[in-house]
């Protein structure tokens, strides 16, 4: 059992409390799901609950954390705590230490004091349960984000601890893979394991959650049985994304066939195939996106969605077939040329931030395109995404949701007619996800063509005009929503 009593914590060199007088009991065999906006203190709660804050972090600490009735400070260190608690962090890539999937899990098992037979038995069982047997000899670094999350979970499950703390273990997983993880965790709960999970996908976990905790500004704003907590409408919107009403604009009329042939499409993909070295990723893809459309591209991890959109600005060049952007074949353009027409927002906004202020971060793209008089453009872009007050802040100090919106502002300021976003709601709570989608809808109304890659079919259903579904590198359906 883990108990937190009146726990407050302030990170070194900061003044604002990351946790404020937080009390919570994680009873044996129970499952607590913690959710809330980015920057609410969910990850800090995980670090506090497993003693990492106490043993590894500086900063101001107050309150008491006990594990199995013993103060965490009385444990000799994390190695001793690790005998009781297993934790999966939100960054799956950072938890890949070894060079094959099997080695990653086997190495975790070697330090548990088990016999060789037990180790082999548990290794086989964990690989089977987490559906990793087929990936046994693969390098973890070359797996998809979702597969890496499964490997990180498997290595922690291998430890056989009774308490599991999981920080967004399904953030990069598609619907199918998320259901697999829910199945695994439900099974573990059935075996009596205690689970603390930070998640934004309440709908998937609702059947296994005993207690729902909603955090805001470092404190618990709601806690209790899920049905009780969700009675509060404001809290409900944080927990369950509600995209209803975003698609208020009347859908674009279906153009007549003759009209369709005449109009220059924003994006025209003709018989596109692409292979990474010798591994095929796209097969004979044909898509036409008209100017001003809002298109959602959905599909499971590894179905080729990101590979497809990288062709739009020539980060990748078709192996065979053609891609035309506003009537120009990408083969005849450079990436720099296409940056004027296509803005691409990647899944992880931290891959782009390097400037000292939010303002300078946006100015970088503008200078690259030779746009002068940047101040007015920057202010307008920041206003568009609701970040004007953060103009002078260091980009990496912003919360995950704010960083995502800043990434959108960086692209919006460059005023490309086509804006492509790869999983723009990853790691965001319901309110933040809705805010991002409202911004995109507003941009569509202003005349931009929007293409969104997502695992979330609600986004496709409630926000997009069209949904393109991909599977194993092929478009298997393309329909109006």
């Amino acid at each position, binding site marked *: 059992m883990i108990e937190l009593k009146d726990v407050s914590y302030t990170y070194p060199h900061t003044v604002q409390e990351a946790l404020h007088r937080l009390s919570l009991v994680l009873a044996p065999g129970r499952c607590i799901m913690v959710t809330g906006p980015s920057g609410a203190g969910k990850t800090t709660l995980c670090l506090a609950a*497993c003693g*990492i804050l106490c043993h*590894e972090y500086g900063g101001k600490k107050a309150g008491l954390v006990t594990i199995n009735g013993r103060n965490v400070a009385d444990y000799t260190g*994390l*190695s001793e*705590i*690790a005998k009781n*608690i*297993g*934790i999966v*962090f939100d*960054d799956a890539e*950072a*938890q*890949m*230490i*070894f*060079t*094959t999937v099997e*080695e990653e899990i*086997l*190495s*975790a*098992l*070697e*330090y*548990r*004091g088990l*016999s*060789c037979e037990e*180790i082999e038995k548990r290794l086989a069982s964990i690989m089977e349960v987490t559906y990793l047997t087929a990936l046994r000899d693969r*390098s973890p*670094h*070359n797996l998809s984000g979702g597969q890496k999350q499964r490997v990180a979970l498997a*290595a*922690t499950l291998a*430890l056989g601890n009774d308490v599991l703390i999981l920080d967004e273990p399904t953030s990069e997983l598609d619907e199918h893979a998320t259901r697999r993880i829910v199945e695994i965790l439900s099974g573990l709960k059935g075996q009596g394991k205690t689970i603390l999970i930070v998640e934004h996908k309440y709908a998937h976990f609702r059947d296994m959650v005993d207690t729902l905790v909603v955090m805001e500004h470092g404190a618990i704003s709601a806690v209790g049985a899920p049905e009780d907590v969700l009675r509060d409408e404001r809290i409900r919107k944080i927990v369950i994304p509600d995209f209803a009403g975003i698609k208020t604009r009347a859908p674009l009329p279906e153009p007549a066939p003759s009209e369709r042939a005449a109009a220059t499409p924003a994006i025209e993909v003709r018989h596109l195939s692409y292979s990474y070295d010798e591994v095929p990723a796209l097969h004979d893809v044909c898509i036409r996106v008209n100017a001003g459309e809002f298109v959602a591209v959905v599909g499971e991890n590894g179905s080729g969605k990101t590979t497809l959109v990288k062709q739009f*600005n020539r*980060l990748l060049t078709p192996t065979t077939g053609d891609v035309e952007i506003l009537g120009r074949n990408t083969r005849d353009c450079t*990436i*720099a040329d296409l*940056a*004027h027409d*296509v*803005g*691409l927002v*990647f899944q*992880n906004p*931290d*891959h*782009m*931030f*390097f400037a000292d202020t939010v303002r300078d971060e946006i100015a*970088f*793209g503008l200078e*690259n*395109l030779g746009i002068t008089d940047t101040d007015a453009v920057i202010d307008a872009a920041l206003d568009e995404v609701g970040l004007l007050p953060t103009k002078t802040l260091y980009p*990496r100090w912003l919360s995950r949701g704010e960083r995502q919106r800043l990434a959108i502002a960086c*692209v919006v300021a*460059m005023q490309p007619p086509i804006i492509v976003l790869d999983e723009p709601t990853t790691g965001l709570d319901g309110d933040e996800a809705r805010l991002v989608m409202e911004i995109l809808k507003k941009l569509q109304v202003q005349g931009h063509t929007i293409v969104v890659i997502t695992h979330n079919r609600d986004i496709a259903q409630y926000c997009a005009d069209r949904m393109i579904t991909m599977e194993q590198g092929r478009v298997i359906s393309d329909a109006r929503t």
Partner: protein
Amino acid sequence: MAEILQYVHKDGFFHRLHPFSKILFIIVASVMCVLATGIPFLILMVAALLILAYASHLHREVIQQLRLVLVMSVVFVIITVLTMPNGATLGYLVPQGVPAIGGSLPITVGAIGIGLVLALRFMVLIFAFQLFLISTQPRDLVHSMEKLHMPIDYILMFIIALRFIPTLQIEGRRIHEAQLARGYNPGSGMIGKIKSVAPIVIPLVSNALLRSNVLGLTIDMRGYRTGIRTQVRERRLGTGDYAMMSGLAVTIVSFVIIAIFASGLIF
């Protein structure tokens, strides 16, 4: 994308060797190439390593690094020519006809010789270490180092340093793509590379620091630092290891004999 200096899952001669045999192999190769100054001998060593790579089905991985190794070798030769003029002059980098500075920066036979020796030593070291690293799982490396009574923290530091290479490689590529999508065109060549430093390196370092924190915590929470390990799937010395050790013994003895009686072949 091929990962630099990372284990490759294959079943070849080198993969089947015990890590101790491979450690012995790189020690012998390193010492011999540092002692030797004869260009033909060093070329022979490079050729022997390439043959060994081919026999172990690792030639593809070794050849992938060949371009980088050749570029570095050319750099070595150029630096040596510029900084260590020695022996007969073959010509000048600045033609003698140029007023005032004509005839400076001589290209000398001695400097080219030293440059070639350095380049060949570099090739031997890179190929030997590459063969060792791409055929040895880090887990086996940890076990071998533990048996040599190295402190676990140093072993883990070594493993982490190796493990960060592909992370930085993949992360660097993603950041590069993200900046290119924002219209960044640093240009090609050395000046382009220098210009691209801030937008690539700052996010790379910031993200790597965050990652290293999570990695350190993962190592602790998986109990790797407890040092109490069940010896599962331990490697034992086999026929290949005895063959390798015999080969190394013959090589060492031959090296010493040649060094004494026909030193011109090596030095």
